[in-house]
């Protein structure tokens, strides 16, 4: 990387990335984007309640975090919801992608638009719609765990699977339909063609879609906030109630855990997507 080394070539007129002013802008922007998050992470290890001056390293707040039953329950809820959402979203997303990729049918443009709706409408609108819907149809509340999470999970699936469908469909673009024709000619049933020919090709897309659905569900606050009740608190909703209260190292620690979890999942997803693209371009 030539950030500090002097580049021996003279600067061309279009070498904008080598101009000091532009480098400075990029550096400042990245600082602006990262400094608050890094500050948050660093000060979760700070041995002081008034967490602004560094008083030494401690992991006390993480210990406290793991001994905080309410927070751990919220964390468990979030993971449960995210896992179920991932499963359903991947299946529904794959089916959507397959239908849109394979078939021509009347009203397809409208159908595609409808599938994009959960992605484009403001979260608040979907949140209140879900809240009204579950209140209106009298969705049972106060069921035993994990069924008390069903309303939140249903809402999460509704906004996650269109995202998964987009990712999976992008993967299907590199699939050669003649392979499916071939299998059909050789006597495979529709189900066998789908399970043995299409799905293996879809696999990286399925994984990327699943990871996307997982992070979307784990991260969601607004829609969950409107569908959750007093005993169905998720991790972000719990953090929100702590944040409203005050800025404390416990919140920093809880946030750090969530950041870490999302980062790991995202790193996996990006790797999958990369492989996806590489395989895609290799197939052409």
């Amino acid at each position, binding site marked *: 990387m030539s950030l500090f080394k002097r580049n021996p070539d003279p600067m061309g007129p279009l070498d904008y990335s080598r101009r000091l002013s532009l480098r400075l802008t990029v550096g400042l922007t990245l600082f602006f984007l990262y400094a608050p998050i890094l500050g948050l992470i660093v000060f979760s290890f700070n041995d002081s309640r008034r967490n602004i001056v560094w008083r030494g390293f401690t992991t006390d707040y993480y210990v406290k975090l793991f001994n905080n039953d309410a927070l751990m329950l919220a964390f468990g809820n979030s993971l449960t919801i995210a896992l179920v959402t991932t499963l359903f979203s991947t299946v529904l997303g794959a089916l959507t992608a397959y239908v849109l990729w394979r078939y021509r049918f009347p009203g397809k443009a409208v159908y595609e638009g409808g*599938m994009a709706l959960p992605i484009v409408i*403001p979260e*608040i*609108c979907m*949140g*209140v719609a879900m809240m009204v819907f579950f209140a209106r149809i009298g969705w049972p509340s106060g069921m035993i765990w994990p069924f008390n999470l069903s309303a939140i999970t249903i809402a999460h699936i509704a906004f996650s699977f269109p995202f998964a469908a987009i990712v999976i469909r992008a993967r299907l673009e590199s699939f050669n339909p003649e392979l499916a024709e071939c299998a059909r000619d050789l006597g495979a049933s529709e189900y066998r063609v789908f399970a043995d020919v299409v799905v293996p090709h879809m696999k990286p897309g399925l994984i990327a879609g699943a990871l996307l659905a997982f992070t979307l569900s784990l991260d969601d606050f*607004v829609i969950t906030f409107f569908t959750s009740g007093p005993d169905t608190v998720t991790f972000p909703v719990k953090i929100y109630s702590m944040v409203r209260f005050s800025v404390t190292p416990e919140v*920093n620690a809880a946030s750090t855990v969530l950041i870490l979890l999302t980062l790991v999942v995202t790193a996996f997803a990006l790797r999958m997507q990369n492989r996806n693209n590489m395989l895609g371009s290799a197939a052409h």
Partner: protein
Amino acid sequence: MENWKRSARAFFTAFTPPTFWLVAFFIVPLSLIWLYSFSAKTGVVDITLDWNLDQYARALEPLYLGIFWKSILMAAATTAICLVVAFPVAIAIVFSKPTMRMWLLLLVILPFWTNLLIRTYALIAVLRTNGFINWGLDWLVTNADRALSLIGLGDNRIVGPFEPLTLLYNNTAVVFGLVYVSLPFMVLPLYAALDRLDRSYLEASLDLGAGHIRTFFSIVVPLALPGIASGIVITFIPAMGSYLTPDLLGGTDSQMIANVIASQFKQANNWPFGAALSFLLMYATFFALAIRAVLMRKEGRGDVK
């Protein structure tokens, strides 16, 4: 692509589950609040559908019109700041070496994957009265005073004593927060537009004696216009509908439309009015998306030529 009739059974097997989910758990809930928006609140929990437009009329009262206008202004300010910041960043990314470009793009996108709530919370720690910025300013002022006391001008005669700035719980904080969370939205479309740009135009312009500034405004901006418009729209839409940022960073007078919708559904318990406001926000979103679609189509036509 094949006609669905050729294998109708397979088509319906794949078509039914996602369609059911979308209709039952998305279209129906939205239709429900659409119906509510034409209803009247007749009791504490009673709502009757009588197809009146009273809720929409109420949304046009100065108080709510003002909040709509304020949301638009805040989102517009956010978009403008993002555009000014993101343009040089996008230029720098486009003109870097391929490996560097990938890393820079990744660095810009990564915060996007961090929870919105956590990013907003991180800003509270930066902006609050005893937050990082005030702490840094305090340090600067105290040390400047100490330095001045060496030449006999100390004891806060010229600078200080330091008064912490109120950076949090006002409109500026909300715009700051919105810029913070929406910057990646702007960088990506600008990057995509600039990446498609034919560089020989820039070279020609520079060869013919135009400066970098002139080249930027007469060549880069017109050619990247569809990308710029796209960036503006996809930054503006989420900013206008944002709930969390004004809720956590704003003061009592920085309520945006989403906060009013939320309070109508929660504290005020006036669902029909909240529903009407939701749909007005959605119509505004669709309008912005339609503009983007028109501009994108224009760009598509330009490519054919």
